[in-house]
């Protein structure tokens, strides 16, 4: 566990979260959310929670993002907020 590393990832996570919620293009938002998931997965690996990190990589960054993109494709891509 390296706390400097930790703080940097955390700050990036907050940024990613805010961007994901502010981007008006839903596809973009979904992708940024994928980045957020990867960051958090990194964080967990760094905290020693390898199993959780593994799962988050497979689920959060992988499947979640894919099904979100699938939904965005089959519905509307633009959002007003």
């Amino acid at each position, binding site marked *: *566990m390296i706390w400097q590393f930790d703080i940097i990832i955390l700050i990036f996570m907050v940024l990613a979260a805010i961007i994901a919620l502010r981007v008006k293009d839903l596809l973009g938002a979904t992708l940024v959310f994928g980045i957020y998931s990867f960051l958090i997965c990194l964080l967990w690996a760094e905290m020693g929670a*390898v*199993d959780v*990190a*593994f*799962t988050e990589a*497979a*689920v959060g960054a*992988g*499947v979640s993002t*894919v*099904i979100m*993109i*699938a*939904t965005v*494709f*089959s519905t509307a891509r633009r959002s007003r907020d």
Partner: protein
Amino acid sequence: MKLFGFIAVIIVGALLLAATGDFPAWGDAGSPASQGQVSSFYIEQTINETKVPNMVTAVLADFRGYDTMFETVVIFIAGIGIIAVLRTFGDQASKAPDGPEADNDSGDLIVRTTCHMVVPLIQLFALYVIAHGHHSPGGGFQGGVMLGASYILFALACGLPAAKRRMGERRAIIIAAAGIIIYAGWGVACLLLGGNFLDYTSLDPILPGDEQMARSHSMLVVEIGVAFTVTAIMFAIYSNLSTRGRLEKGL
């Protein structure tokens, strides 16, 4: 609404922050949670009780196996819930069955070829993750997601119909249910042999090794059960969500 939301968020946030002052410092090995009897037991006794080096797997599949069974059920519910909500069973019969060469009608050649090469590797690795969950990170859930992802990848590259021939809807549901049947059935087997539900030691007579090894082997069995369910449901979720429940043509 915005204002109301903002106020609610500020209040809850202040409440939560007020509590953090009371927590042990981050990373404090002496905190009650880390020092507590329960986690000490898991760390120190896992190897004696179950002969599994990966504590997370042991806790997941044995100490809190009951929880994990329901975790699998949650996935199962999500799968059939999505089908129940989204799926439109229409004129299935009128649709012409896809020919054998349907694999090749969609997608780019390079993508398809790469996919055909990569998918087996992914699946192999997924099986390794499932089987090796005792010793390294991973287990039924992670491996199952990867297996499911390999089918998703296949569907993305070669089209959903092609993937559907390998993992049709009916088959997916059967596999998913079979996964939980393996898990819960294993628990019931314990029950029939005289132990409590999911008490793997009671399976000792029918498994090789001693009581601890019975636990270890049983964990593998239930992990396989989890993997079954997760694989099938992940693909079912994707195939329904990407086609709005029509299961015709993917993305």
